[in-house]
């Protein structure tokens, strides 16, 4: 019963996301990712993973789980229902003192179960004017723990304008989700070098002048 309701809610959320954003995927030349992977994206809105979810074909989408902060998604019963039941999120504890499990282990376990992940390496939503905040080290630790998994940069454009921080009415605007070429951590690559490379790969997808170059 609860599962059926969750399915219904997810359909409504997807339809709503399409109505508001008319979201359009822009795939990399390598095409739609066919293997298990980690999508890492810029993060400026609570709706970010929903847009990635929306543009993925249903078969792919079934196996994709967003990684989200437990502090936010367990805050209330509604949040927990949406986070856990509707989107099947992998919940990690961002606040170090409240951790009962290592976040990287939790994510690696989800990968071992065969899921793909949506991950936001900035750690929190970007509320600044810069396009992309510095990455936290999570992506590096995850990549080191499971080095054979493809990491796919994903740029979500315009969603921060649809629903800026503190607003609760979304403005209909066209959003795009741009997928980049998969990358993996190199043998012996240092943390700083890897983070820099991954961040540049993501930034390269950001549109200029409201439209992507491709």
């Amino acid at each position, binding site marked *: 019963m609860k599962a059926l309701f969750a399915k219904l809610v997810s359909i409504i959320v997807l339809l709503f996301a399409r109505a508001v954003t*008319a979201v*359009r995927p822009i795939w990399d030349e390598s095409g739609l990712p066919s293997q298990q992977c980690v999508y890492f994206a810029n993060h400026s809105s609570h709706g970010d993973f929903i847009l990635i979810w929306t543009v993925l074909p249903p078969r792919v989408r079934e196996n994709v789980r967003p990684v989200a902060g437990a502090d936010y998604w367990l805050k209330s019963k509604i949040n927990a229902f949406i986070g856990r039941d509707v989107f099947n999120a992998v919940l990690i504890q961002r606040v170090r003192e409240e951790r009962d499990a290592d976040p990287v282990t939790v994510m690696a376990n989800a990968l071992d179960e065969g899921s793909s992940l949506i991950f936001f390496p900035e750690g929190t939503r970007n509320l600044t004017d810069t396009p992309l905040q510095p990455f936290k080290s999570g992506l590096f630790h995850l990549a080191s723990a499971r080095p054979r998994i493809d990491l796919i940069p994903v740029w979500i454009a*315009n969603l921060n*304008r649809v629903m*800026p921080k503190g*607003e609760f*009415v979304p*403005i*209909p*605007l*066209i959003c795009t989700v741009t997928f980049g070429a998969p990358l993996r951590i190199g043998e012996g690559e240092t943390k700083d070098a890897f983070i820099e490379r991954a961040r540049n790969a993501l930034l390269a997808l950001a549109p*200029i*002048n*409201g*439209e992507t170059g491709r």
Partner: protein
Amino acid sequence: MTDARADMLLLISGIGGILILASLVGYFLQRWLSPNGSNAAIENLNARINAWWIMAILIAIAFVAGRIGVIVLFAFCSFAALREFVTLINTRRADHWALATAFFVVLPLQYFLLWSEDYGIFAVFIPVYTFLLMPIITVLRGDTQRFLIRVAEVQWALMICVYCASHVPALLTLRIPGYEGRNVLLIAFLIIVVQLSDVLQYVWGKLFGRTKIAPNLSPSKTVEGFVGGVASATLIGASLWWITPFTPLQAGAMALIITLMGFFGGLVMSAIKRDRGVKDWGHLIEGHGGLIDRLDSVVFSAPVFFHLTRYWWTL
């Protein structure tokens, strides 16, 4: 004068015939010139023809559904057009409430006023009340950076995408003696003439186009395409006089005005696209680009057509 339904049926069969012909031509061109999908122009032509089928079917459904169908169709067109327009303008966080008002209050109210057929308020609601209210909502947030530009852009978005577009279904509200129950044919006349003009300008331009007419705005538009397209669309408009309250000569003159407004509307909207560094307004219609790419000429001609008809032909 025949029954409006019979005329409508004739018109729909005519358009269906043209589309079937276009699809056949597109099919054979593809067989000969682009068998493996390598010729981009042919592929785009076929994508355009397929999209035309969908647009024609949607409009036909709206016409069959009657007044409410037409109003709902254009309300959705306004919504999608406004979404494309606002995506390209300079908005700041302080514009949030003004934009929410534009989408969720102004747009539905304009179409509600249209439905209620109260012309007095329909005609002034956006240019008077909304244009005064929107900057007030914006100014309350206290952000003065590029204030005039931001306010002007939102107002123009509303003017083009909502106010002007709503003048197409507004043709239904005109009371023309001897033309009762046939107003939907006026919409058909407007849309057919404007869109055929666009198509014919494209065709004439592809066949005979040599001299660019506005190289800075729209490199694909040519003098030959413009003259040929406008002239042939005017003739087609004149030959469609039997679905209008006009004489053949009047229908031709109306068609000429509509096509000229449509042409210049296209140029204006191209200038905005160039300024924003985009090729199309969006990706809603396969082969054509965004909805505004298809609607730009209609939007510019509809209010003029509406008022000319209202001034000379209504009581």
